[in-house]
């Protein structure tokens, strides 16, 4: 354990216990954040990280214990109180209102009772500066966020925090929806702030991010604080074993048993596909029993591609066809796609996935209920059995179908959403970034689960914002760039650098012109030029 820094902590939690009714989410939690440090907060799904975040942001008050700011005990009784202490937060669930513009979202809650009709020019400029520093287009501030991608929504919530005066910024898995380049820009921005003595509490399941960013890390397990370690000790293996309480946790990797499938056996294909108007057309084959990864930076078409394949979004031109008992059936919509054996796990779990007023069981069984029904009446026992099976398979905690879905941690809620579509036992399972916010151990088990599904004949198409994830679990990876599939990588060619290069399409040579490792890049340039 590292020695505590000499300066008084910016924010300190001492002996915190927090209960949600009878559920003990935190017990004897300790946390101390020094000025000018990036402090990691890690733990498995449901270990209490978001609860810590909510206590520090004035969303809830602890059942027991003390919150200290600058050494003095304070009562953070409301978000406004936290704001007065210059604590700003980006929450795990991206809460963005579609009812007002991006700019209004950014400044929501700053105006007084007599709300100004328009945000002032100074406000706009401040927001634009932050958005630009994150590499996003200022246009996202103007319109309603309705059509924004998850990453763009995340940029709005980041901006919302960064435009306010702060000395502690809390990021609760705020990077999970960001693509690589936006994330890197965010890290650069954070580094600047850190130099000015501001602190960051950084919650993430991504070991690579933690390694780059943090100065110290506090580990939570089952609501208890296991300890705080300094940068040198905070290796992924060490953190993982502290998180799980097992010494081998860092070791058991799932080896991607990537196999090459016969190119002929195609189960789903895009022909002359164009994702948005005027975008170049391309073909894409999805082979039976493979795991096809979809990569690419945000806004480069990856999300559009999975939506088009699932029939959720119409093609701009061209067609998507699925193999139905030997003949090609055109996919015309998602209900028809579902009847043809395609299931789609949407990416925005709050907006497109969960039913907040319903139970875990209802959320999980919604799509497959008719299968347990006769004449419109379903058999509860049969539904519950199936729900329990999926919950066990995915490790949803708590294992209680009647729990309200809003009482689950972010990662567990995500598992329920995936379970809804696993229960449908589709031929083709299309997943839009399914493991966002899911802890590492669960992820590895999930990769194994996908592998088993494919062995049983299921085909998986999976979009991911993490290159590592694509490399670990996919047989092939289609990288989208400029609203088309730029390249499909497999076998020897499927490497981190190749995926990264393809993400940037032809621009890679401009950015890394001095690089000599460019045999990959050269071939890409040949493809585009």
């Amino acid at each position, binding site marked *: 354990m590292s020695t505590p820094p000499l300066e008084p902590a910016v924010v300190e939690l001492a002996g915190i216990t927090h209960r*949600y*009714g*009878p*559920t003990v989410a935190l017990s004897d939690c300790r946390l101390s954040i020094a000025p000018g440090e990036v402090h990691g907060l890690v733990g*498995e*799904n*449901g270990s209490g990280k978001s609860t810590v975040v*909510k206590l520090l942001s004035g*969303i809830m008050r602890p059942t027991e214990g003390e919150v200290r700011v600058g050494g003095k005990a304070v009562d953070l009784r409301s978000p406004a109180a936290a704001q007065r202490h210059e604590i700003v937060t980006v*929450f*795990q*669930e991206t*809460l963005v209102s579609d009812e007002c513009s991006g700019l209004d979202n950014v400044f929501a809650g700053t105006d007084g009772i007599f709300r100004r009709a328009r945000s002032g020019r100074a406000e706009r400029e401040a927001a634009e500066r932050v958005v630009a520093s994150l590499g996003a287009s200022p246009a996202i501030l103007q319109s309603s966020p309705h059509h924004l991608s998850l990453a763009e929504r995340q940029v709005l919530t980041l901006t919302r925090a960064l435009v306010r005066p702060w000395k502690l910024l809390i990021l609760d898995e705020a990077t999970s929806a960001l693509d690589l380049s936006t994330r890197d820009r965010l890290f650069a921005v954070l580094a600047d702030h850190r130099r000015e003595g501001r602190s960051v509490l950084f919650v993430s399941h991504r070991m690579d991010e933690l390694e780059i960013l943090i100065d110290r890390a506090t580990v939570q*397990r*089952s*609501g208890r604080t296991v300890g705080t370690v300094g940068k040198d000790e905070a290796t992924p293996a060490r953190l993982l074993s502290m998180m*799980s309480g097992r010494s081998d946790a860092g070791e058991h990797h799932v080896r991607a048993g990537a196999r090459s499938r016969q190119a002929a056996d195609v189960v789903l294909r895009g022909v002359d596909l164009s994702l948005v108007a005027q975008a170049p057309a391309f073909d894409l084959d999805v082979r039976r029993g493979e795991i096809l990864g979809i990569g690419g930076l945000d806004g480069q078409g990856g999300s559009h591609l999975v939506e088009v394949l699932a029939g959720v979004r119409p093609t701009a031109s061209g067609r998507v066809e699925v193999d139905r008992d030997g003949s090609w059936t055109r996919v015309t919509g*998602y*209900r028809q796609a579902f009847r043809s054996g395609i299931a*789609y796990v949407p990416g925005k779990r709050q*907006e*497109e*996935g*969960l*039913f*907040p*007023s*319903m139970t875990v069981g*209802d959320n999980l*069984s*919604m799509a497959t*209920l*008719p299968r347990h029904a006769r004449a*419109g*009446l379903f058999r*509860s026992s049969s539904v519950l059995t199936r729900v329990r099976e999926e919950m*066990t*398979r*995915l*490790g*949803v*905690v*708590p*294992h*209680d179908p*009647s*729990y309200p879905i*809003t*009482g689950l941690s972010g990662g567990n809620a995500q*598992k329920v959403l995936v379970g*809804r579509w696993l229960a449908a036992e589709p031929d083709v399972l299309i997943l839009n970034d399914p493991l966002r916010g899911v*802890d590492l*151990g*669960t992820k590895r*088990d*999930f990769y194994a*689960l996908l592998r*088993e*599904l494919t062995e*049983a004949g299921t085909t998986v198409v999976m979009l991911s914002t993490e290159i590592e994830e694509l490399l670990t679990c996919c047989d092939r990876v289609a990288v989208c760039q400029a609203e088309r599939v730029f390249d499909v990588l497999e076998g020897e060619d499927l490497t981190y650098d190749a995926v990264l290069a393809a993400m940037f399409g032809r621009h890679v040579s401009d950015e890394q012109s001095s690089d000599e490792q460019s045999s990959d890049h050269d071939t890409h340039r040949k493809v585009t030029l």
Partner: protein
Amino acid sequence: MSTTITHGDPSLAAASPPPPKRRTARASSVLVYLSPVAMFVVLTLTTPGVLSTTGVMSLLVLASVLGLAAVGQTWAVMIGGIDLSIPATIGMANVLVTTLYAEGWGFPRIVLLVVVVSLAIGTANGLLSSLFGLHPLVVTLGMASLVTGSVLVATDGNTGGDVPGFITDAVSPVGSVWGIGVPAAVILWLATLAVVLLVERRTVFGRRLYALGSNERAARLALVRPVVVRVVVYSVGALCASAAGVLLAGFSGGASVSIGDPYLFSTITAVVVGGTSLLGGAGTYARTVAGVLVTTMFTTLLVGLEIGPNMQQVMLGVAILLLITVYGRDRHVAQRL
């Protein structure tokens, strides 16, 4: 398929505590279902004559009419909408029964016509509020004035006439069915209650209704067709409202297109008193039943205390505002984080 993901937290799983939210929900629902009992006690203490078979039955008959009218309001609220066309539908059924019966139509034929018109109203409400993205407030308001207007045009303003004797009997507190001393109106309500609760709790449609109210976009992707759900919800609502309109014909003997007017406010009151969230996605008709009983007894109480209709309105309004501030605090944004 044997992989089980074991990285959850075993200690929490083993304890598997009852969730807090469910507990508070249970606590508040106990209150909701106890409130009619409390109200009844108050009523018997203040109003003589209630504590008799006839007294109770007349309360129940009044409750049946409101209860039938409130089916549609409950479901509309549960899918995040509202139904302002219920009074007009009540008036439509009321006028059609009395006028056509006086003109010599057979009762089955009249019922068939009322059913067809109700389904048309419900379908139009459902389609318009889905396809053009119009707010149900606007759609059902327009529908209300369309229906009332059409009835007036069709009857040339000469509403009223005759009612079949068995309808008068159905709402008579001393009426009975098959020798059981319960008026037919009450039996009809109980039967409706049974079906409505079965649909809410045990059918695929019921789950989809809640899903639509909870998150429309997610519901679509979970294979719910919002149009279908809305059409069914507003059609069932219109059918039940028409039944209420027919029963109302038994009371006065006369008829009027505006006979349903008080039911706009009272159905919403019943839903709110029952604690069904106006945000949609939650609640149940069972709660509305409690709300119907409380509202009916409250009105009877006010009448017994010789409080005039205007003052009744004021007091109901105060009651609603109080309840909304109590219930309105659930489902806070904080829970979505």
